[in-house]
């Protein structure tokens, strides 16, 4: 899978586009947003529906899909979809 720079992800790290696509797909389902509206920069500030309850659903949907469990500290770092993809990727590559 190709990796691309997403300058907006908070630590400036590169995001795996395959993982990001999966994250956007799931976020699209959970948040009821069109996939074209979503990008690595999407956050609760840009998506109307994205409140703390939806954040929990999103986390659970990702945990279920990827068979992982996030630590509370992981969840604190999830400010944008790009962040989520980064956290997820670090979980998956362990």
């Amino acid at each position, binding site marked *: 899978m190709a990796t691309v720079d997403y300058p907006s992800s908070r630590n400036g790290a590169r995001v795996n586009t395959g993982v990001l*696509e*999966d994250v956007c*797909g*799931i976020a*699209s*389902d*959970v948040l*009821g947003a069109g*996939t074209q509206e979503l990008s690595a920069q999407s956050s609760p500030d840009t998506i109307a529906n994205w409140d703390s*309850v939806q954040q*929990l*659903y999103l*986390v*659970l*949907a990702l*945990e*279920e*899909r990827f*068979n992982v*469990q*996030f*630590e*509370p500290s992981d*969840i604190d770092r999830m400010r944008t979809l790009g962040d989520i993809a980064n956290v997820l990727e670090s979980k998956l590559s362990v």
Partner: protein
Amino acid sequence: MHLSRAWKIMFPRHEVIMQRAAIDGLLRSGDTDSAFALLVEAWRTAPTVSTAAFLIPRFEQLRTSGRFLQSRIALLRSFTVEPLIPIFRAAMFASGIDARVHVGDFNTYSIEILESESTLYRYEPNVVILASLASDVAPELWSGTLKMSANYHDSVNRVVGHFADLIAAFRKNSDAYLIIHNLEQPLHASGGLLDGRHACGQRDAIAQINVQLEQIAREQHGVYILDYDQLVARYGHEAWRDERKWITARMPIAAGNLLHVVDEWMRFIHPMTGSIAKVIALDLDNTLWGGVVGEDGRDGLQLGDGYPGAAFTSLQIALLALRARGILLAICSKNNEAEALDAIRHHSGMILRLDHFAARRINWDDKAINIVAIAQELNVGVDSIAFLDDNPVEREHIRHALPQVRVIDLPDNALFYARAVMDDPSFERLTLSDEDRLRSTYYAAERARNELHQTVHTKEDFYRSLEQEALIEPLEAATLPRIAQLTQKTNQFNVTTHRYAEPEIAALAANPKYRIFSIRVKDRFADNGLVGVAITHDTERKCEIDTFLLSCRVIGRTVETALLSHIARESKKRGMESLTGAFIRTAKNAPAEMLYRNHGFALTQENEGGSRWELDLLRQNVEWPPWITRARETVHA
């Protein structure tokens, strides 16, 4: 991966995207039947948090189509149940139930149940679920904080007494169904091994509460205990909980287990709403036993102790247990009836006996037709039939042809067949005579209305849905062994049963009067490989079909029409004026008997041993089936 869902397909992302686009397209076009079928399919293949969130607003768009039972469910709880709700609603929608779900506040369930004017009763629920946790109901019991010498008698009495009060008050204020979660055992008793060394220790106390809850529920009408402790144990205590979510969000259940809770709720919802199967229609070959009786013979079947026969024995035991619940067993199978009955009567491994089956249709007809006939014979609606078949093509066919039939998905591995049957909520019963006692003038009226929406699709729709692609080729060195093998082992769809060894096939191929064709078939599920053979022999102006056979896995899908069409066309091109063929009867080849009649051949001769047929090529042809795509043309020079 959850064991019970281990066979579910996790589609690649692009297929999910395409499926979702198709759903939205159907909703826009107003084709509500197809949209509903695809929504159900999406849930069936990937029942996840994410899918649920996508599906619910789309199911809601179908509300006006009048296909859903309405139900009002109240969920009283001591922990965060919110993430369960979308999964629950999606599962119910997929089962044809449009449920509004009211969620009570944290730990207010006692007041809501005890006070007759509470929001709970004003909501007028049909079903109430009370989901509390041992850690909330009896904190001292859950944490084991009493002194080692103390016992938990007081805790047991207090908890049981409280539940008894709640149940009594509930029955006084509502006639809804009530489902109560029992208490889960902790991972470890705080006293370790010592816990069991004195009466009414921690684990003993929780077990006693659960036993007494069952007793109280048995004495009340419409009150049931959900065995939460056993549910947790089924999937494993270790994997069940997520302590992180418990501490941060009061959500004790790990993401991968949310569906299991909902599945358990659905076991109650199905019988409560009358969406139950009264009959299970069973395939025989590779379902009730391993192997194909028409090919392997009775003694070649896998059934009995040891691997792999034990898998089928387990399924038969599970089916016998369903029968004890009052579910009728029926056979719906493509076999020669005499052989199948012989195996049922005389195979030493059979657990099920012939008199266990309430009806049977053992023939080569379309299974949808047979299911309708079974429903008529047993005097039940087609929507009361469940269908069990190892063959995904048959399952897909029934889903299309009879969408109201409950088609049970079987995993590839037969060891899990029994589990798949026991997991299915449509076989659950709340009492043995429940159908009569459904509080159900309500639901019965709803059902009658829904039946107006049931549609039966045509065979052609089914053929088209298979997306078959056929490639017909002359003999090649690479296919010679497979062709010889098929002539030697195909018994059922085989008009002449001429057996040829490899050198004999090679000799025929070298003879300019003979032609050898093979057909390969792909469909949307799989590449079936080389599944049919025809050998023809030219004499003067006639072309004689010496051999025409199909592997049993493609019978009933018009593959024979494609092959016959090709042969007829090629013969005509060579200047042949007629195409002739014989049907030579054997004990096993009944499936091929109608081949020539069904394709417009005229009968020229007939006796007990068989029949001869002729097609006038100057006036007639055999049409290629329009639903099969012709892969690369091959001219037989």
